[in-house]
C-alpha cells in the first residue's frame, strides 16, 4: 500500500469532510439548523404581523350593539352620536334608572348584560349623565362590559375612542372662548422642527448601534444552540451507535479526530448562525420603515475584533459542548446534559446587552461570555479601545485553550469505547 500522506491537519480534514457529509444526510440536523429558521423567523416577523393586521381589519368591520342609558331620553349629544356611527356602533336608547350609587355600579344590568353579550344582542352599555360645571358641556359616564368577551372588549375600546374625540371637541370649544387652541393650551413648550433631523449620528452609525443591541445576543445564543445537535451526534451519537470504537481503532490520533469533529461542528454551527442572522435581519427589516436599516461602516480594527471575538467564542462553545457530549453514553443523556448549558450562555449574553459601555469597569471584559458580547458590541459601535481589546482577546484565548484542553482530556478517556449497546 502507498505511504500515508501525513501533512498536518490532513486527517482532521478527512474527519471533518466525512462528518459534514454525514450531518447533511441527517434530516434532523437539516430541520433543526436550516428548515426551522427558514420557517419560524419569517413566520414570526412577517406572517404574524400580517395575520394580526387581518384580524384587526376583520374586527373593525363588525357592527357592535351598544345600549345607551341616559337620564333624559332625548338629550343624547349629536356630536357623540355621529362619532359612534362612524365607529360602526349601533345604538339603542334606554332611560337610566334613578338611584344608582355611581354609574359604574352595574346594579340590575349585571346579569342582563352578561346574557346579552353571550347571545350577541348587546356588547356594552354606555351610561351618560349630564352635570353642571363651568364648561360648555359637562358629562359623567361609565361603560359596562364583559372583559372575557372579545366583542365586548372591542365595543368598550370603540366607545372610549369616540368619547375621547368628543371630549377633545368640547375642550376645543371651551378654549376657543378664551382665544386658545388645544395645542396652545396643552403644549406650551414645543419641539421645533423634525425630531429625527436633530440626531447628528450618521445612518451607518445608527445601524451599528441598532445591530450592536441585537447581533451579539443572537450570535451568542444561536452559536450555543446551533452547535448542540451536531456536537451530540458526533460524540454521544457515535458512542450510542457503536461507531466510536472502530473509529478509535484507526491510525488517526484522538486529537486529530477531535479536531476534525470540532471543525465539522464549527462549520455547521457557523453556517446555521449566519443563515439565521440573515433571515432574521431580512424578516425584521420587513417590519420597519423603508431605509431604516443602514449598513454599519466598520473600520479594519472593528471588523478584525468582530471576527476574532466570534471565532474565539465559537471555539470555546463547540469545545465545551463536544467535551460534555462525549462524556455521555447516549444521545438522550447528552441532550439532558447540554440543555441547561444553553442558559449559561443566554443569561450573560442577555445581561451584556444592558451593560453601560460608558465608564465600564475593565473586569467585564475578562468575564466569560460577557467579554465576547461586549467586544462585539464595541466593534459594531466602532469603539476600538486597545485596553478592552487586549483584555477580551487574551481572556478569550485563555478560555478557548481551557475548553479545548478539557475537550481533549474527555476525548482521551478510556471508557470512550463503551456504549449503551
Amino acid at each position: 500500500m502507498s505511504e500515508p500522506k501525513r501533512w498536518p491537519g490532513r486527517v482532521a480534514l478527512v474527519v471533518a469532510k466525512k462528518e459534514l457529509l454525514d450531518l447533511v444526510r441527517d434530516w434532523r440536523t437539516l430541520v433543526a439548523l436550516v428548515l426551522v429558521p427558514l420557517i419560524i423567523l419569517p413566520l414570526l416577523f412577517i406572517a404574524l404581523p400580517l395575520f394580526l393586521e387581518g384580524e384587526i381589519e376583520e374586527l373593525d368591520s363588525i357592527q357592535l350593539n351598544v345600549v345607551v342609558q341616559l337620564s333624559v331620553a332625548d338629550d343624547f349629544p349629536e356630536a357623540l352620536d355621529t362619532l359612534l356611527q362612524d365607529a360602526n356602533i349601533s345604538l339603542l336608547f334606554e332611560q337610566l334608572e334613578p338611584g344608582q350609587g355611581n354609574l359604574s355600579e352595574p346594579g340590575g344590568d349585571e346579569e342582563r348584560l352578561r346574557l346579552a353579550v353571550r347571545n350577541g344582542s348587546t356588547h356594552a352599555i354606555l351610561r351618560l349623565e349630564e352635570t353642571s360645571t363651568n364648561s360648555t358641556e359637562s358629562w359623567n359616564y361609565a361603560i359596562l362590559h364583559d372583559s372575557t368577551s372579545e366583542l365586548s372588549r372591542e365595543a368598550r375600546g370603540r366607545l372610549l375612542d369616540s368619547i375621547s374625540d368628543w371630549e377633545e371637541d368640547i375642550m376645543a370649544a371651551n378654549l376657543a372662548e378664551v382665544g386658545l387652541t388645544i395645542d396652545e393650551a396643552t403644549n406650551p413648550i414645543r419641539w421645533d422642527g423634525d425630531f429625527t433631523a436633530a440626531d447628528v449620528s450618521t445612518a451607518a452609525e445608527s445601524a451599528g448601534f441598532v445591530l450592536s443591541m441585537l447581533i451579539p445576543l443572537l450570535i451568542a445564543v444561536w452559536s450555543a444552540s446551533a452547535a448542540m445537535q451536531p456536537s451530540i451526534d458526533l460524540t454521544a451519537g457515535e458512542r450510542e451507535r457503536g461507531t466510536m470504537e472502530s473509529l478509535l481503532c484507526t491510525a488517526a490520533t484522538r486529537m486529530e479526530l477531535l479536531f476534525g469533529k470540532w471543525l465539522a461542528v464549527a462549520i455547521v454551527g457557523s453556517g446555521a448562525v449566519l443563515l439565521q442572522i440573515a433571515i432574521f435581519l431580512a424578516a425584521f427589516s420587513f417590519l420597519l420603515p423603508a431605509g431604516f436599516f443602514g449598513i454599519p461602516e466598520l473600520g479594519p480594527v472593528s471588523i478584525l475584533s468582530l471576527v476574532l471575538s466570534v471565532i474565539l467564542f465559537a471555539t470555546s462553545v463547540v469545545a465545551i459542548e463536544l467535551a460534555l457530549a462525549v462524556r455521555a453514553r447516549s444521545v438522550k443523556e447528552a441532550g439532558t446534559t447540554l440543555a441547561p448549558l444553553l442558559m449559561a450562555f443566554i443569561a450573560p449574553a442577555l445581561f451584556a446587552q444592558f451593560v453601560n459601555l460608558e465608564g465600564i469597569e475593565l473586569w467585564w471584559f475578562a468575564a466569560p461570555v460577557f467579554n465576547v458580547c461586549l467586544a462585539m458590541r464595541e466593534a459594531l459601535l466602532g469603539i476600538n479601545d486597545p485596553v478592552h481589546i487586549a483584555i477580551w482577546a487574551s481572556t478569550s484565548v485563555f478560555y478557548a485553550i481551557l475548553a479545548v484542553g478539557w475537550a481533549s482530556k474527555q476525548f482521551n478517556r478510556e471508557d470512550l469505547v463503551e456504549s449503551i449497546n
Partner: protein
Amino acid sequence: MGAPLLSVRGVSKSFGEVHALQEVSLEFSRGDIVGLVGSNGAGKTTLLRLLCGLYRPTIGDVVHHATDGSEHAVDSVRQNLGVVPESTGLYHRLTAWENIRYHSRLSGVRDSQAWNRTVRLARALDIEDVLHRSTRGFSKGMRQKTALLRALAHDPDLLLLDEPTAGLDVTSARKVRGLVRMLQQEGRTVIYSTHHLAEAEQVCDRIIVIHNGTVRADGSPRDLMQHTDTDSLEEAYVALTLDASREVSDAEVYGWFQRKWIALLSRFTARKQLEIEEVTEDE
C-alpha cells in the same frame, strides 16, 4: 512459528473493583491464526482492546515488534492494524464504500488502492453489488462483511476480530471463515475471538482459553484435548473453565450451562468421580 509480532507481558486490567484481566502473558507471531475462546465476560474483548491500544494496561505492557526487531507501543502502529469490533460500527447514513473509504483515508491510503482491494475482497465475501448501497437496512451478515472489508482496505498485517461470526447465518459465517483462511495464506496474523469452539477448531492454529480474566490454556486444539484428557475441544473447554474451587467441593456444581452442555458435563464429572447435585439453567 513465525517472527514475533505482539507481546503481552504480565498484563492486568482493572476497572475500579472489577479485575477484567489478571497477569496475562502471551506472545503472538506473524502468520498466526489465534482463537480467543471464553464465555461472556471472560475478558476476550478487554484483551482485544488492549492489543489494539484502546485500553492501557493497569499493570504490564503490550508491545508490537517491528520487522527490524524494535519494539513499539501498539497505539503507535495502528497503521498495521485492522479491527472489527463486536458492534460493527458502520455509519448508516453512508454507503458501504463510503464507510470503507473513510477508514482507509484515515490511514492515508489512496482511494483507488482501497477500492481495488475492497472489490477483490468483496468478491470473496459475495457483497460487491452492495458497495454503493446505504448501510441502513443491511442485514447483520452484510454489516459484518462490510466491517471486515473496512478493516482490511488499508492492507494491515494484523487483524483483530471480535466475534466476527456471531449472529451470522451459516453461509455468511462460512464466507467469513473462508476469508480468514485466505488472509492466513497471505501471511497475515489474525486474532479471532469467538464463542464457537467448532469454529475455532476449524479456523485457528492456536486457541487461547480465557476464563474469569485469566488464561486457562494456550495451544493447538490437539494440545488442549491432550492436556485435559478429553476427546473433543468442547470437553476440553468445559474441563478448563470449571472453577478450581468447585472441582474440589465434592459435589456442588451450579452453572449457567445450556442444555447441550449438560451431557458433556455429566461425562466429565463421571470421569473425575464428582457428583452433580443440581443443574440450573440461567434464564
